[in-house]
């Protein structure tokens, strides 16, 4: 058999069988929520596969970028589908990362010894958003150009260095001749390579440190063997993730640039709103106060606070969360067992409050369309959202915390916590022996 021969060829030279044996028999804990991160992984795979194809048709010059993207969807249906799958993969990629991060947060999987992997994960979320934004800009349609114009204004608002950075990115003032080539290099080279490197670190650390689990047995990893059990589940997850994305691409049109037309800095499509993961920034720009002051004669524009300071604070806060959490809980011990969310209602409340704040900002990014449909002056909506941002977040957080506490009380009543866990231990001879572990 040819596979056997290939296997022997590599084993004789590289000793691959020992590694295969190690990885194939490795035990992985299993839970439905562990597949959220895998969805992100497969979305990234689709992004790379369709992205390579798109590089063959895209022209990164200001005069031809738009027409090259329009032409690709007109020349062959497969080109249109490629772009749709690429864009849908991008928006679901960021969504899956965020859901995966929420799972990690609410079950406290970020605790020691996994803080490093949390930082890697948060960095990937930021990189994925940047990759999404640069990709959204590349067709240089009216909406993309408008987004770039806003991003340029935000850059210019950074005191001292902003103007220099914007000049380098543009190769002059906006929209400079080097803007699209620079965005293109970032989008197809630096950002994906950075994501791929961090992804390797992320997965490598998971394998090395071993996965967390809900089974309250801190001394052992309890779960399924990689081959064939977990591997088959991964293939199923791959097929399912790809099917969902391609089905969306085939049925729901995303970013119809043909309707927007090419970009001129004196036209803007209405309504104008970004992809969902950037909407919280746009919402913040809409809700931000009209403050501008001067430092030594230099203006610090209003958009500096919602456009630069807010995302930076959110990012740093997310990075630092494992240490903030450890200080708050006074718990600096190593943990491999997950905390069911209901066991820490305060964390549920805090997380929900943060997500709600993001939700309000995201909603605010389409306040003009809401005003139009609801026949409410947009000015009133801005006031409403400005109040809803702090007040609503606190209320949502408190409600979620109380709900989690209630759920836990119910579980305790029904005796769910004292479930008996049966654990099979592998013996030295290769067989399995049953062993009882009483959960706490």
């Amino acid at each position, binding site marked *: 058999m040819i*596979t056997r021969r290939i296997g022997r060829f590599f084993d004789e030279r590289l000793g691959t069988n020992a590694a295969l044996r190690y990885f194939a028999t490795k035990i992985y804990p299993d839970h439905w929520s562990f597949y959220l991160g895998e969805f992100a992984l497969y979305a990234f795979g689709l992004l790379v596969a369709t992205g390579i194809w798109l590089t063959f*048709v895209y022209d990164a010059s200001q005069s031809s970028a738009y027409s090259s993207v329009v032409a690709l969807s007109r020349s062959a249906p497969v080109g249109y589908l490629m772009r749709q799958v690429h864009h849908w993969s991008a928006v679901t990629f960021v969504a899956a990362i965020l859901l995966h991060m929420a799972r990690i947060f609410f079950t406290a999987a970020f605790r020691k010894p996994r803080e490093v992997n949390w930082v890697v994960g948060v960095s990937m979320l930021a990189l994925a958003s940047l990759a999404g934004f640069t990709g959204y800009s590349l067709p240089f349609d009216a909406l993309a150009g408008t987004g770039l114009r806003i991003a340029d204004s935000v850059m210019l608002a950074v005191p001292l260095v902003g103007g220099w950075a914007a000049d380098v990115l543009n190769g002059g003032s906006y929209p400079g001749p080097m803007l699209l080539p620079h965005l293109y290099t970032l989008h197809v080279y630096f950002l994906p390579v950075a994501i791929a490197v961090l992804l390797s670190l992320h997965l490598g650390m998971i394998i090395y440190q071993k996965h967390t689990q809900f089974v309250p047995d801190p001394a052992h990893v309890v779960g399924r063997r990689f081959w064939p059990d977990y591997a088959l589940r991964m293939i199923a997850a791959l097929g399912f993730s790809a099917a969902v994305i391609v089905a969306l691409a085939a049925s729901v049109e995303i970013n119809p640039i043909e309707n927007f037309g090419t970009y001129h800095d004196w036209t803007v499509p209405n309504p104008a709103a970004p992809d969902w993961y950037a909407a919280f920034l746009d919402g913040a720009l809409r809700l931000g106060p009209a403050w501008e002051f001067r430092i030594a004669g230099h203006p610090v524009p209003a958009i500096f606070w919602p456009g630069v300071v807010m995302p930076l604070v959110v990012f740093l806060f997310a990075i630092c969360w494992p240490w903030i959490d450890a200080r708050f809980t006074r718990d600096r011990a190593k943990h*491999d067992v997950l905390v069911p969310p209901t066991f820490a209602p305060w964390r549920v409340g805090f997380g929900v409050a943060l997500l709600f704040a993001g939700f309000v900002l995201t909603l605010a990014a389409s306040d003009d369309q809401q005003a139009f449909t609801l026949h409410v002056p947009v000015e009133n909506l801005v006031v409403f959202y400005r109040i809803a941002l702090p007040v609503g977040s606190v209320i949502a957080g408190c409600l979620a915390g109380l709900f989690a506490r209630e759920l836990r009380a119910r579980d305790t009543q029904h005796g769910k916590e004292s479930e008996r866990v049966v654990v099979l231990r592998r013996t030295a001879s290769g067989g399995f022996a049953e062993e009882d572990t009483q959960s706490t």
Partner: protein
Amino acid sequence: MTRIALFGAILAALGVGIAAALHAEVAVLGWLATLAFLAVAVAAGAAAKSLRASSGLIEDRHDRGPSMLEPLPPDVVSRPGALGRLWMYAVGAFAIMGVVPFVALARRPGRRGTAWSSGARLVTSDGKAVKADSLVVGAIETVFPQGRTGAPESATLLLRLQDDVLRVGPDRAGWAPRGNVAYSKICTHAGCPVAIYRHASYELYCPCHQSVFDVLDAARPVSGPATRALPQLALDIDSAGYLIARGDFSEPVGPDEWWRPA
């Protein structure tokens, strides 16, 4: 179940390939691809379900190296059976599904014509039109069709010879009025410009790979790796005395390729 789903995945993935090649609609392509991925999910899911219950296996938390002494469990090393081969065919079908969109990028191969057309005046690289007696006997000039200076594959060598030295076949009679003969400047070997004229021996010499073409004998190769003559441009003289082309080149210019029309 796994078997049926895998068959479905293979058919759907190949279907995407065929549909893409036939320029089928987006909906057809998209839903076939969805079906292919979904079938893989069903196949793997069903295979996972059919395994004997394997959850609840444990290993020590602090074991960090491979344990090479343990024998491999039998189902890790078992040789692939019919089902295993079906999985491999599915991988192959998905590979085809991945390659076809790249094929869709390609335009029909085969050389398209040059910028030369009937009646086009010959101009030098600085745009000056050439008359029948502009060149002295023995001179050589690179010319283009008027208004298309620098057009791809259109660079042409114009040589002025004595009236009687050219050996003209009956099919090319009158192509070189008053000793003005024109050949493609693009070498038929590897596409370099045939830039050097050996005046004394009436030979065109390609500096890249040293192919030599006989100007007097329809630019046939006499030495070096080229196998095909430089295509000749049939010339005429218009009423104002300027040199014009009678049409495009007699045959495709440039190097040979698989799809070159015979």
